[in-house]
């Protein structure tokens, strides 16, 4: 008995020590020893978590700093802009008469294109398996990510959630919603989210190769997509079609996939020096530092009318 307790105590100490060591490295770039940085994951007790937070609390690390890390030679950032190549149809208004609590001005969101062609809510994700992950991502690894029901639409419409993170299904509307999540590999869930009720937590149990649809059966026009992933390397384009994936492992050729809800795989999407294949994938070697793909043009024919 005594033995066991002693061991537990020792291991806690050890873990705590290791965590401090890890944080120290992450806080002061360059993170040249990623192996060591990953070590503290073993037996990370509850006591150690606040310690880690405290250590980083003082230093709010802006993204810029990570870029500096990338400049070091180990990591690179991928950015670009996905463009709808053609004339995009305007969003349609949807019939929200079902629920007086809903705003009357909801429009369809399955294909949103900015005036200059930027494709919103498209997804770019890493396809290469088990990549080396930048230690900075650890801090957000166990975050809660919110999918809000607000004004009878989901907010955000598309987002990335890691398997280690918890998706909080929240309802900010004065009316009841439900969130019908039907992943291919994981377990489906369809809880009612009562107005004013507490958020319902949900965890993805398996990485899904394409984004998982979320629907609301009470308000059938509502839809959202979740990119459920093991690693953090995926991004959703903003309203102008821009995306950034920070801190990818540099030096190796990586495979990426492009996807958008209306089209599915963004096949034949072309950028300077590359083109996606029939299943929206292309290979690209990340250089240390910035990698800009520029405009990735997706032919209009790929999209449904």
């Amino acid at each position, binding site marked *: 008995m005594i033995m066991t307790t002693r061991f537990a105590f020792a291991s806690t100490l050890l873990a705590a020590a290791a965590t401090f060591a890890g944080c120290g490295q992450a806080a002061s770039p360059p993170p040249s020893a990623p192996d060591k940085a990953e070590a503290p994951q073993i037996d990370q007790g509850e006591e150690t978590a606040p310690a880690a937070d405290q250590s980083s609390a003082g230093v709010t690390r802006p993204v810029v700093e990570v870029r500096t890390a990338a400049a070091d030679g180990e990591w690179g950032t991928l950015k670009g802009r996905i463009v709808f190549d053609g004339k995009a149809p305007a969003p349609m208004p949807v019939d929200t008469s079902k629920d007086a609590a809903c705003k009357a001005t909801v429009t369809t969101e*399955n294909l949103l294109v900015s005036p200059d062609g930027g494709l919103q809510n498209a997804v770019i994700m890493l396809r290469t398996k088990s990549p080396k992950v930048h230690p900075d991502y650890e801090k957000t690894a166990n975050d809660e990510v919110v999918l809000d029901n607000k004004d009878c639409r989901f907010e955000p419409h598309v987002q990335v959630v890691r398997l280690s993170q918890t998706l909080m299904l929240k309802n900010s509307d004065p009316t009841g919603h439900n969130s*019908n999540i039907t992943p291919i590999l994981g377990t489906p869930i*369809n809880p009612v989210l*009562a107005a004013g009720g507490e958020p319902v937590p949900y965890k993805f149990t398996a990485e899904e*190769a394409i984004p998982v649809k979320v629907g609301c*059966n009470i308000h*059938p*026009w509502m839809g959202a997509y979740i990119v459920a992933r093991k690693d953090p390397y995926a991004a959703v384009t903003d309203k102008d079609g821009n995306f950034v994936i920070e801190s990818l492992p540099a030096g190796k050729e990586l495979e990426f996939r492009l996807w958008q809800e209306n089209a599915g795989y963004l096949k034949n999407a072309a950028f300077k020096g590359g083109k996606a294949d029939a299943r929206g994938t292309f290979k690209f070697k990340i250089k240390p530092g910035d990698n800009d793909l520029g405009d990735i043009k997706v032919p209009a024919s790929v999209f449904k009318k």
Partner: protein
Amino acid sequence: MPATESTWRNQKLLHIVFGVSALAMLVGTIWMFAADHRREWKTYQGKFRSIEAWSAQARLSQSETEQYEREVADAHDALEKAQQSVPAAELVNAFNDRVRAEAAEKKDAPPANVKPVDDAYIALKDAQPEQRPELRKDFRQTLQKYIDDARFIENNATSEKKFISAELDVVRSEYELGVGNALPQSQLKTMQARVTELRDRVAAANDEMQDAAAYRKDLEQILNGMFADEAAARKRLDELQTQRKQLELALYERENKVMNEVIGLPIIDAFAPKKLDQIWLPNLTINNNFRDVPRFDRCTNCHQGIDRTVAGSAIEPAYPAEKELAISLETPAERPEALDQKPAGGEELAKFYSDQLHAIYGIRLAQRGLIEENEAVISVVRPESLAAKAGLQVGDTILEVGGGKLRGKNQAYNYLIESAQWGQPLAIQIRRGLPHPFASHPRLDLFVGSLSPHTMAGVGCTICHDGQGSATSFKWASHSPNDPLDAERWKQKYGWFDNHHWIFPMYPQRFSESLCLKCHHDVVELQPSARFPEPPAPKLVEGFNLIKDVGCFGCHEINGYDGPNRRIGPDLRAEPNFSPAAQGLLATGGLNEQQQQWAKKIIAEPDQAAPRHSLMQSLNDAEELPGDPMTTRRLVNVLADVETPGRLRKVGPSLRHVASKLDFEFLYSWIREPKDFRPSTKMPQFFGLWDALDPHSLDVSKKFEPAEIRGMTEFLLSGSQPFEYIEPAQGAEAASAERGKLAFEVRCLACHKQEAFPQAAMNQGPDLSRLGSKLGADRNPNGPKWLYTWLKNPSAYHPRTVMPNMILDPVKGTDGKTTDPAADIAAFLLESKGWEPTNIPGRDLTKDEDAALNELALEHLQNAFSKRQAEEFLKTGIPERMRADLKGDEIELVGDITVEKKLRYVGRRSISKYGCSGCHDIPNFEDVKPIGTGLADWARKTPDKLAFEQIVEYMKHGHGTPGALHMADADHGDVAQEDKGIEEAETAGTHHSFNFLNMPPEVGYFMEKLVAHQREGFIWQKLREPRSYDFEKTRNKSYNERLRMPQFTVLDDAQRESVITFVLGLVAEPPASQYIFKGDERRRAIIAGNEVIEKYNCTGCHTIEMEQWDLEFAPETFGESAEMVDFNFLKPHFTPQQIEASTKVNDRGMQTARIVGMPAVNAEGQPVRIDEDGAPIEADDTETPASYVFTPWENVLLGGNVWQEGLQNVIIPESAIKKRYEPVGGYLARLAYPTVVAEEQKINPNAKPDEAWGWLPPPLKGEGRKVQTEWLHSFLMDPHEIRPAAVLRMPKFNMSSEEATKLVNYFAAVDGVDYPYDFDPRTRQAHLAAAESEHPQRMADALKIVTDNNFCIKCHLLGDFAPTGANSAKAPQLTEVSRRLRPDYVLDWVANPKRILPYTGMPVNIPADKPVSQELFKGDSMQQLEGVVDLLLNYGKFTESQLSIKPMIKSPPPAETPQPQDAAQ
């Protein structure tokens, strides 16, 4: 005569005679023994024994492969690990505590000493693992000592108790004696005290003993717990070793006994084990010339392997029938280096090759072949080797490698090793399975197998196969070849011949299903079922369905009854013409109000006897019959009761009001050649079948046929009764073909085809292409009106149609406009054109036509009158006064003659002649019986009763060139005449001009039978070219005596063979009643329901059985399933046995499972295929290894893990799918799915595709468990809208209440729930009162949940409340729940709807772990759930209780006012 030495016969001669005869006898005896030894079946038995021995050897070898060794090693490891482990400290503490506690209980005893235990334990714990086994033993012994001590105490206590008890007995008897001897009281008192004392001591000793025993048992239990893992590991090892021993034993018994060899010797082999077996079936008699004798089947003497299954399965054949397979075997990329160390030769070389084969490909070859000594048979396949990946199995014989034929085993080594191209796959041809007679029965699940419904000992062989069961050699068993090639081979190999003297020859393989009909009279039970998903008799069932579909029974009744109650076979007969007769009576216009009502009732529900009896009675009592008295009398007679009436409806449409639908030109063209307008029509061809005609007869046909067609058209149109069209809806938008197309697609394709939908394949109803050419306004002004009326209410036109009323009521759209779907669909259908009738005669007859009409009429009239009379009547008409004497169609000619009358007469005669009324309802033909031969015992009809006529000549003379039909042959008439002389001379009387071997096997088979004048040949040609039996006969027949059977152009060769399969099963020889298939009550209900389902094509829309996949997969393929939070009562339950069974691996090292549900589909309705990452693969990508996403609709065990219905998708690799059973039904739902998804996504791009399942006809899996019987019955009779979201409504079928009952019972029986009544405890007052007492205002609180703005009423209709918005998000009316659904179902459904309907959008309202707001309903999740369910099921009662009636009733003012004070109040 003096005695002499001489003998009567010459002694020497006698010696010679004796010697020779003795020798002859010896030779005879030897010959006899030799002949006996060489009997065919003994050879087979010997061979089979060696095959079995080989298989046992192979199994043993296989068990020696790595797979087995690995298991053994695993078990060893586990044991070793267990032996090196340290028992848990808690258990040691528990042991010590127990010892201490025991000591503490004993006063005076010293405290327990547990130090030895602690010491031994610490020693064990501190030791190195490898020392632990020994120390464990010590430790165990230490503990055992305490147990031994305990046992010692226990034994002591036991013996002490015995002693005291003995003493007690003595003292007690002394006391009793003392009482008897009247000893003084004081003495007795002392003795009594002694007894009491001893009794106390016994009790004390007993307590001590029990305590000691409990103590000892406790210790033992703790000890066992400490060493449980070791015991378990040891047990597993023992099991594996036992398994091996069993295999070795099996082999020893079969192979190694020297005895076997001895027993196999001549003479001795006459005794065991080669002995003649027979299956004796005293109750399954066989009719041997007027006498029923018990059946003896000796077939198994040769067919030794017939009932053998693979180890561990009760149904998988051990020795499948042989077949050849091509297999591609990968080779290693590089030449294996080990090949360089090849030994010089001899034994070592053989061993070297054998080892190399094993090392490279993972196979070994058997020492000797299975059938031939020197064949290369695979005896070992190493799991996961190249060979295993290529699919090679133990027992496969390698025939060819890379195109080179193997002659002997050694060549296999050459081909596979020496001449292999490394890195290139090898093409290998193998033979798998065994030849007959060694093969096992292919369907051991159905036949012969011990778990099958037809066990070998129970029914034997010949009851199903026919043949001579008592024979013991191939040729005498009356085997029947499947084609001429078989026959030829058999002749050479076995000396087979066609034994004409055995009247029940075996049925050839192509008809092996026929004789199922002996016992399976209803046939539908032979469809695939949950128990037998593999169709038991597909060909037979197809034949049965074809006969029902094309309406063979309209002319050829198949009467399944011999007398009112004795069933002799399938019963296929048209129903009595009650409905048409009632229509006829109604049409006379002379029925009074009451009679009209009865008539209408009969028309709609002819199986109701009461109105029929009333109408008949009332008309019989009438003084004067309405209408033409003779006709009316006939109609009234039709209404009489029928003994065991037929049950089938006529297959053709009613022609009673045909003039309201069709015009002259269309009808004429249709009768002449139906397939001209509609190539796929089931209506057969009556005219233009001229192949067998000589030139003269052909001229006659060409003359008379147009007259007949003209006459029939005229008769039908002029005799058509008036019809009222339904007026289109007022105020609706103009009809739109575009809307109509969509409306048509999501409804009508369940039964019909149409050219706009090439993907549609149902043929329950006709193909509706080109309807505009038939019913378009430009052809026929009535056409569109008729079509609209038909769409609105088909029964108005044809009361017995199976086409349902689609309830096409006008609908008001969201834009406020009203549309009329019936008008839309009509517009769509009429748009389709592209056909014109051709060669239609003018309305006025030409001179030739008139002459032909007269001539034909005369021929008909001559049957009733003399020629002179006939000629006269044709000129002047039949005088009115003769009307009463006319019995038949001549009535048409009464009165002044006109061309129309002659046409009507000829038409009516033709309709009689061709038996049109067998399929159609035609006025004046209500009492006509079927015109063809009954078929109930056709398969036992002797061939001499079949009119083969000149058929062989016909086949020879070119017309009947096998395989070709000659309908369209323009030059037919002349051929026969020209060649006649030559051919007659050439082949007169012989059949040898046919070489059956040169024909395709199926043609050769039937041709041979035809030439040999056998039934099979007759029916084959009768179905192909029915009129060909008139060849060379027509010249001597009148036109009306010619054959009349039409040609069923819709049937192809395979379908005709199916029909033949069915007809050949019509033997009318039912075996003893215990063998006739009856099934238990539920099974009968299922069968009866299936008939109704088939009749109305319920499965056209609804899935009644989900897809089933048989899986075979390597262990660990599916991994573990995720845990989930849910109500306990919903969690799946499997027994430990079931879980263990699911982890068992089969011979191939694979686990198996059957999964029920449906694969996920994409928006296009195609199954989703994903790659290893889970990303969907495009339909055209067949390269990427694909997996399916399968949603189980039933909980399933995969390798020991439970996957929960509706909640956990199973990712199934394509390679794991052994067999897929398509879903039963749901055709329209699947067909319309993509369209419905696309339509919805047009207005709501976010619509989830799989929700569309909820808008289409729902699968009826679990329907019996779901709905209340009474509700379902009334719903079927009068369907109403349930789901507002549905894109189509359940139509109203033209079905009887009895049929609806059958369906209700069917669903309940399938699900194993109560019927016809179901008891509902949740609606009982006692239940509700009890619940209410626990939770006052429970129902009111539950209503708070239901009406809360977050839950039910978000989507559901409730009373007069309906949610706003699009229909697709609305859900059924909740007030209906109490009438519609069963309580258990509602509970399960509300708790977690996805478990029941995986695609449902209904969310979980009350999660198991998180009740909804306590402000609404105070209680936990389960209480809330129960509350809501009770409310839903008692909604009516609850709302009633909210409404007080009393205040509404005004009491009358009191007459007197005796108490004015009260009145003042």
